[in-house]
């Protein structure tokens, strides 16, 4: 019951490997998004890549390369434009991104409707984990590799810039460059994830384990590990539930992640509801 679906069906194995690859790379980014108070930016960027994906599909057909290139380009364009607009005018970055992504989302829907047939909007929004082919799998694995290497290289400035951006900038450690590099990684992961989960659900695997991570660990590194474990468990559980109950995979995985998040919220070891409510005798000093 737990192993058979993966042993018997190649499409389940591919979906599993793809989702585990995403689970390695996306949640650490989510942890930093939460710490940078940009939890909702993932959602915005998820929508922002939609017009790129649609344009890619219109130009190059429903091919992995065309849609991915379109998505990455659209996402990067919006990240850079929003970054420049906020730094140039003092408009807050989240407000700036909100403006750009709404325009992008509307453009995306218009483009999809103009193209008529060919692109199924539902597939773009909710993905098709069971339809992940070898090309998509390779793409996801590559993105995961790139993300993990990049995160390892920029870990120190990224933590410092997240905690105290003024200090790092003043000490000559750079500022905007790290922020943009980080958002570029977020875009890459969302594009990689939309094949399996769709643009809407990709954000779920990135953010839900990350928001829950603070209930499990009090350090940045610990939260990253907790988020990766939670995302991996949600991927396995979601795929199994989706297989046995015949549910769409993307939402099943995100619901599983939501269940783990709720568990942490209720009873995690750090600042959960249980820890707040449990009346334990206070210490002497």
């Amino acid at each position: 019951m737990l192993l058979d679906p993966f042993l018997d069906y190649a499409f389940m194995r591919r979906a599993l490997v793809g989702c585990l690859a995403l689970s390695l790379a996306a949640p650490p980014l989510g942890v930093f998004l939460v710490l940078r108070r940009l939890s909702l930016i993932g959602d915005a960027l998820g929508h922002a890549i939609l017009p790129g994906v649609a344009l890619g599909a219109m130009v190059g057909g429903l091919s992995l390369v065309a849609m991915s290139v379109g998505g990455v380009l659209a996402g990067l364009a919006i990240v850079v434009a929003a970054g420049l607009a906020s730094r140039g005018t003092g408009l807050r970055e989240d407000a700036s991104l909100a403006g750009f992504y709404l325009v992008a989302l509307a453009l995306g829907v218009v483009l999809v409707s103009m193209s008529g047939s060919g692109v199924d909007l539902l597939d773009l929004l909710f993905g098709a984990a069971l339809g992940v082919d070898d090309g998509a799998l390779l793409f996801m694995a590559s993105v995961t590799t790139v993300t993990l290497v990049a995160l390892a290289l920029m870990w120190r400035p990224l933590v410092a810039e997240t905690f105290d951006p003024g200090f790092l900038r003043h000490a000559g450690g750079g500022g905007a460059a790290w922020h943009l590099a980080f958002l570029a990684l977020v875009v890459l992961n969302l594009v990689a994830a939309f094949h399996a989960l769709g643009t809407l659900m990709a954000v779920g695997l990135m953010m839900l384990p990350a928001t829950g991570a603070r209930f499990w660990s009090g350090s940045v590194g610990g939260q990253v590990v907790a988020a990766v474990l939670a995302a991996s468990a949600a991927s396995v559980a979601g795929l199994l539930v989706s297989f046995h109950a015949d549910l769409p995979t993307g939402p099943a995985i995100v619901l599983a992640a939501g269940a783990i998040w709720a568990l942490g919220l209720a009873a995690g070891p750090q600042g959960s509801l249980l820890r707040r409510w449990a009346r334990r005798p206070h210490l002497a000093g």
Partner: protein
Amino acid sequence: MQRSPPAPAIILEGLTVAYDRHPAVHHVSGTFGAGSLTAIVGPNGAGKTSLLRAVTGEARIDGGRIDRGGIAASDIAYLPQQAALDRSFPISALEVVMMGHWRRAGLFRRIGGAMRREAEAALAAVGLTGFETRQIASLSAGQFQRVLFARMLLQDCPVIVLDEPFTAIDARTTADLLRVVARWHGEGRSVIAVLHDHDLVRTHFPETLLLAREAIAWGPTAEVLVPANALRARMMAEAWADDAEICARAA
């Protein structure tokens, strides 16, 4: 600890910093001497923070110039006013202090045992021995300010700039941190601090700049903090004149 380059004099020549063309700092000229210990006092809205931001290279200069005597803006340690940091961030006191190693450790260089011991010594110097692994979320405002001072100890900069470092800080913490300031002064570093407590300035700061957009007085503290100067500073209009004309004074 390693020795930093000697502190240079920092010379302002007709410095003007404006927001939306209205000057917050207006034609200020003078010198922060090498190794000097200077307090900047003045009413709210007098441009104290703007002047510090210009000196540290954070604010755009709209007129005049700043001669930092050959050191880079990043050689100036800068503690902003009530640093708007996320105190719930999952990081320990020692890790915050270690950020002070940035200039030496950079992106990739290993932070070895020696650097770690320096960070522990810095925490001890601000009276926080035993707080190494404490999360900053569990620190009081005064303890957190001590941590930020420890970080500046590690930065080892020839010039140190503090914006209202003792606001909302209790007397004992202030006294401890003033000892750190005195230590920097004794090591020949220049220290510039924005302060509101004139008694504290008289006791601990030999030089004072009284600012009210323009420099009202700048020199030995006893000569600057006199009633006549205080009156002139108070007369400074806090409101902008919407119909102000273009300033005709040469920079």
